[in-house]
């Protein structure tokens, strides 16, 4: 019997992977992908939870998350493109003007 904990651990692992990606990848696109990974980990939890609880709220949430993630990706990519078009880079190291 695969208990819910297994899903949770897997999801946590995925979430951590995503987190590490955000923390350590210098390429903005990869950072965006990592965030997507984190969201998907969340989705996994919701889906498995929904399944476990026999309750569709989790599924509904997942739909919303997917939608919102798409929006986010849209805005994010637009920003990255704007950055690339203007400065020719998508490296996060470029983003160091604001500090202090």
């Amino acid at each position: 019997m695969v208990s819910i904990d297994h899903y949770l651990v897997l999801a946590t692992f995925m979430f951590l992977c995503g987190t590490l990606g955000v923390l350590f990848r210098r390429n903005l696109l990869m950072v965006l992908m990592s965030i997507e990974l984190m969201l998907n980990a969340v989705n996994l939890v919701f889906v498995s939870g929904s399944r476990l609880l026999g309750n569709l709220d989790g599924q509904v949430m997942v739909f919303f998350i997917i939608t919102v993630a798409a929006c986010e990706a849209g805005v994010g990519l637009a920003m990255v493109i704007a950055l690339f078009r203007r400065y020719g880079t998508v490296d996060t190291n470029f983003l160091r003007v604001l500090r202090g």
Partner: protein
Amino acid sequence: MLFWLILFFPLLGAFLNGLVLRKASPTVSHVLGAAALVAAFIYALITYLQFMGAGGQAQVITGIDWIDAGTFKAPFNFILDRLSGMMLLIITGIGSLIHIYAGGYMHEEKATYRFFSYLNLFVFMMLLLVLGDNLLVMFIGWEGVGLCSYLLIGYWYEDDKNAAAGMKAFLVNRIGDIGFLLGIFLTFKYFHTISFSQLKDMILTAGANLNGEQLQAIGWITLALFVGACGKSAQMPLYVWLPDAMAGPTPVSALIHAATMVTAGIYMMTRLNFLFYLAPDTQMVVASVGAITALFAATIALVQYDIKKVLAYSTVSQLGYMVLGCGVGAYSAGVFHLFTHACFKALLFLGAGSVIVAMHHKQDMREMGGLRKFMPVTHFVMLIGVLAIIGFPGLSGFFSKDEILWRAWTGGDSYHIQWGLGALAAVCTSFYMVRLLMLTFYGKNRSDHHTQEHLHETSVVMWGPLVVLAILSAGVGYLNVPHILPFPAHLLFENYLEPVISIPPLVADHWHHLHAEYPHSLEWAIMGVSVIGMAVSSIFAISMYSDGFGKLAQSLGSVFKSGHRVLSNKYYVDEFYDAYFVTPLRDIAQFLWKIVDVVIIDGIVNGVGQACMLIGGLSSFRMSGSLHRHGMVMIVGIVCMLSVLFF
């Protein structure tokens, strides 16, 4: 009512001269100042006569309330008894003479309103001091006379030295005043009153009921008050201000630093004699300090050249006698010497002032000599003054000083040393006073040509008071003639003060010798020692200084070179104080300001601020900038939150 006028006139004079008539001519100031005093004297005399006519019983004159806080009460009450009545006359009487004289002395000054204002104020304060019925009113006068002394010493403030001398006088007096204050605190703490009349009642009537704690406290009270007396009456080790105070105009020296203010300590001790009697240990200290001061100052006076300095040290020395008198329990003797001293020392100072005016404000005796020819009156009165102070038989000093020395000798074995010191001091006194007289009035005139041309006797305004004082100096001694001498009335003064001086029954045994009978031969012997010592040293001084600084004087000076140097440098006391008190204090103050305040305290305060800035700068620099670092900080935050929650 008359009584209040005594206080009112000097105050009015001070007010008018000081604040209203600032544009008035010197003559107006003089007349106003002197008139205020003369009026005060007249009223004092009337009051005194009324008082004595009524039997001379002490009476308390109630005034308004002054301070009234908690259980502490200090009303403006005044005490009129034989002691304060006598002081009243001395102050206003001698004060009037000096005020009159001062007009002549100060005639070259352009605006003397300040001078007379201060002098009048001084008299007012002095009257408060002697009339106050409680320690606190006395303390007003006590500090008030200090203030006036400060202002008058620094009268010629444009010379920084004078200003410094005034300040020194004030500060040294303040040291004593702290002692006085502590005395007041202790008195209030243990007796719940500071009124003289109440204290006296309490001690004398309920003397037996005093508990041990109170008796012990009396020791401390008297000691503390004596510190105050040391300050005001220029005793060791607080005498240093008095010689410097000679920077003031000479009438000031005469009035304040010889006749009146400096005697405040003796007056206070006499006023509280019932307390001092209860503290034999303190009395021992008092007597010792008095005797040591008398000799110490006298030795310094031996070698001074400044005429006023000699008189100043002489004053310190004479005050030592008075204190010695108090210390051995002979308060009436002390006060009697105060009285005679007021006369002859005022005379000597005013005479010296007369000389100084004639010499165009030169005070060095090395430039004088032979003034007898030019100033016969001054010479004559000075001669009387000198004879009085050295104790020439028949003049006032003879009676008063010998009485003190006699009481010291009979005070018991423990007081023989004090007697010895006093007698030695008397020998010195004769020497330096005769030396002063010789150097000033005899021999050849040593001043420069210009001064010599203008040498002449001073005006009547100045020599008039001198004559009066000379008569007093010669005569007042007969008020207290010892039993052994053939005279119609003996010990008038002592009997007069009898009601004031009261030995508490508790310690009557200890002081029994004050009333004991002694063989006449002993008294003759003691007197003989003094007279012989006086005569020998006077003759010695005459022979040494018959014509200026003769060979003998010079050779003695070179033989005792180091001794002479120590004496002329006044035992280096000022230097000692400077090196061991003033300079360290200054260093500490500098350290407190420059190091503690600026570096340590402000350093911490500003350091905290700067540390915040530094941490802020570092943290905002380290944390921000990179996207990843932001994320990292967030993860660290989550980890911290988890650890807070789980552990």
